[in-house]
């Protein structure tokens, strides 16, 4: 991609969208140089703001004509560099496509544009008796298009599943500029489940322009509990016991002492500062069964050594607990100037082992690590605290992260449960998958994006990079 190529794309893009929907000044582009993964940065050459699928299709055709690569972006909340523009090119920012096009309660679906912020749909559905289940912690900012690209999870996935379980159909623009549609409001469209295959493809197969989502019945009631533990291991054992008893909580989140301290400073909820772990457990469903489930959970936690189990007395208290959980990342700002949130998964019975290893790894590198995570899914989010102005600390954070993720793999898990590979975890793909697996994935991508011009070099390690020691996450990819 040459400067001439970029320059040749600019006039037709301006003609198509108007000057105000095309950014190319260095100062304007800086906003788009990274997402929530701040370790790696690279500016796009041009940023455009389409308002329709037709705009996107025309933008893609202009990029093709000029031989410039292109990448879609939602709100930029990816924690794995999912919308880092490797090698520059045109960034297609979808945030102006923000209409909720249809809400159909009788048929239990909604149709939204990709730039709709997750929580807007929640708000629009209030009072209908239905909701959109995936609720990532960033739901106040992240877009549904971005959720589709990364197959986002959130605290309620244990019972309700992740994004892909709630997406019925997609419309999008292919790498050749054609507009396609897979699936829709009716079930079981004939042929391959391309809807399911595109969800989680991190923008490498399709630029999504419309999403049909499943709506879920609101639970009649819920019970929210806080289990306070003197030992992390006891909390982890409680999780296994609850699940093994046949209870599927709507949410089962764990917070360790480091996070409890930060949350207490920020929100003064009244967490005991000496607790080593707190479990946030929520069961929902029919009122008729909830008290029994609540009592069973209390009993199981106590059997595992809980110091106490508190019950949210009313909706106000419940909302306060959830506010703590969802804004935890804000509270971490009080602990450290920078932090890196990791995203690993292990079978949930391996959590006690993994949490022990995370603590050891933190000590080994002299890095403070705090944990707040989706314990019921075995999906850990160790948060490594550091100062990004200190190169030595950055180095240690990366090494410690890698060691934690290796441990997840050794436990039979995955290096990402919901954040995606992006560029951050490219080097792990060779550890999780064989050469044949990756070649097959490459061929699958080729069916949609044969020239690798759409979100180039994301998610799959590029040929030749296999097995090489990575010094800095994505650094080589960014060159």
């Amino acid at each position: 991609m040459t400067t001439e190529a970029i320059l040749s794309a600019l006039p037709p893009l301006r003609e198509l969208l108007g000057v105000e929907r095309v950014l190319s000044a260095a100062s304007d582009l800086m906003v788009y140089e990274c997402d929530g993964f701040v370790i790696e940065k690279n500016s796009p050459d041009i940023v455009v703001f389409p308002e329709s699928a037709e705009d996107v299709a025309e933008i893609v055709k202009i990029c093709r004509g000029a031989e410039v690569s292109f990448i879609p972006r939602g709100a930029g909340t990816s924690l794995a560099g999912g919308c880092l523009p490797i090698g520059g090119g045109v960034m297609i920012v979808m945030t102006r496509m923000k209409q909720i096009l249809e809400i159909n309660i009788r048929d239990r679906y909604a149709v939204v544009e990709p730039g709709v912020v997750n929580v807007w749909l929640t708000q629009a559905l209030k009072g209908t008796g239905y909701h959109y289940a995936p609720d990532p912690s960033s739901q106040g900012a992240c877009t549904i298009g971005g959720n589709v690209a990364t197959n986002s999870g959130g605290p309620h996935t244990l019972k309700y599943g992740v994004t892909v379980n709630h997406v019925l159909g997609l419309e999008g623009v292919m790498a050749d500029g054609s507009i396609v549609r897979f699936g829709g409001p009716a079930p079981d469209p004939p042929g391959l489940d391309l809807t399911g295959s595109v969800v989680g493809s991190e923008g490498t197969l399709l630029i999504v322009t419309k999403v049909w989502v499943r709506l879920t019945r609101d639970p009649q009631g819920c019970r929210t509990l806080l289990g306070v533990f003197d030992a992390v291991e006891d909390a982890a054992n409680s999780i296994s016991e609850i699940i093994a008893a046949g209870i599927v909580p709507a949410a089962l989140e764990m917070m360790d002492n480091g996070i409890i301290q930060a949350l207490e400073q920020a929100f003064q909820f009244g967490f005991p500062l000496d607790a080593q772990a707190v479990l946030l457990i929520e069961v929902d469903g029919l009122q008729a069964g909830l008290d029994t489930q609540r009592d069973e959970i209390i009993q199981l936690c106590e059997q595992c050594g809980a110091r106490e189990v508190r019950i949210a007395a009313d909706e106000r208290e419940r909302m306060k607990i959830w506010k703590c959980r969802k804004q935890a990342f804000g509270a971490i700002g009080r602990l450290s100037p920078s932090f890196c949130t990791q995203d690993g998964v292990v079978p949930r019975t391996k959590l006690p082992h993994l949490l022990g290893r995370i603590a050891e790894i933190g000590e080994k590198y002299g890095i403070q690590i705090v944990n707040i995570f989706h314990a019921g899914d075995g999906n850990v989010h160790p948060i490594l605290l550091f100062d990004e102005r200190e190169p030595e600390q950055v180095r240690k954070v990366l090494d410690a992260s890698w060691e934690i993720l290796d441990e997840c793999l050794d436990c039979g898990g995955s290096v990402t449960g919901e954040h995606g590979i992006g560029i951050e975890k490219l080097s792990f793909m060779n550890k999780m998958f064989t050469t044949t697996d990756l070649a097959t994935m490459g061929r699958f991508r080729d069916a949609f994006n044969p020239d690798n011009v759409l979100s180039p070099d994301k998610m799959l390690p590029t040929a030749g990079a296999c097995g090489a020691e990575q010094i800095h996450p994505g650094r080589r990819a960014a060159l």
Partner: protein
Amino acid sequence: MVDNAFYPMHDSHNSSDSREPTTLDEVVAAIKSCHESDSAIYPVGGGTGLAYGTPPAREGVRIDLKHLNRLIDYPSRDMTVTVEAGMTFQSLADLLKTNQQQIPLDVPQPDQATLGGVIATNVSGARRYGYGTMRDYLIGVQAVDARGDLFKGGGRVVKNVAGYDFCKLLTGSLGTLGIITQATFKLKPISRTSILMACPLADWELADRLLERTVHSETTPTAVEIVCGGAWRETPGLQLLWERTSPAEGLLILGLEGTDEEVAWMRARIRREWKDAGVPWSEEITDQAPDLWRSLAQFQVDDECPLILKISCVPSAVTTLAQSVLQLDADCSLQIHAGDGVLVARMSEFPEAGLAKTVLASLVPLANQNGGNVVVLSNPSGRDMTHQSVWGGIGTRFDVMTRVKQQFDPDGRLNPGRFVYLGGL
């Protein structure tokens, strides 16, 4: 042409050109030998889904997976299980039941159907309303492509977004992208109580009113079904209802699962809701619930039925579609997954005028208008089994699917002709 070559329709089980691998290596070797001899490959599990799909494009080698049936790993406290694809659904269900766990899918002929086959055909049934379908349970998959290359997707943990989701891609792919050899599932606890409630539907207008009410009800049934037609007359649990109901009418059936308290509450609530809606009387099926669940799962089995169709639409259109099917064939029997928008129709005869003038001319446009489609599940006559009549017309999306197929199986060796791809792949 090879003598005794396998032709995967009804009369094909005597083929001598058949491989029965017992290990993964033997699967790979069998596929590689087909690759070398340029033979078509027809993977077979329990053979319960062979009627589904367009006729094969050419003769070839049958690869029978039912001996590849070992349990690989069952960490029950993690609520996942990994098995080889040739294990039958029932064998796995029996194993999971020892820990009060399940894959909550309704599979017909579960003692024959293999897990690989269930994945490849994406079979679902009544409880999809409450539990979803195969795509919601398959979290890891291993398969061998047409070249003999082993590939995998997903893993063994319940949450995982590393790499492309081949679990979704292979679910419902009818063995055309690879032979599935191993699968990992996420599991659910078995509900402590499970009953069904049924009431007669005097007319379709009442059906619409009750379905609408179900959407807004605070109850959480796991199945919302409408059944009608002669095939249901002898069904366990329903005889009393039929004695007092005219054959022209259907029954609404709700499946209720949960704890004792939950089910008791729902049962009382539904009784009241139905009464308010003008339903004269209803039936609760408790002791016979397992038999009725089984009958609901078995309805789509292709025994002797001259034509079985599967029609999809938005849920609010199921009664419109049902009436349209009954106009075509007043003696057909229907099972409607009314909460989801799926109708399975067992026709009383193959239409005289052929599929093009009946199904394609009337049902497909109506299904299309309501967001759905019509596919043929079984047609033993073999008549009119064209791409268009079996897969409900040609849409642009088949172009992209064909491109995917070309990437996985460029020579069209795996189940050629049998699926939605263009150009006979």
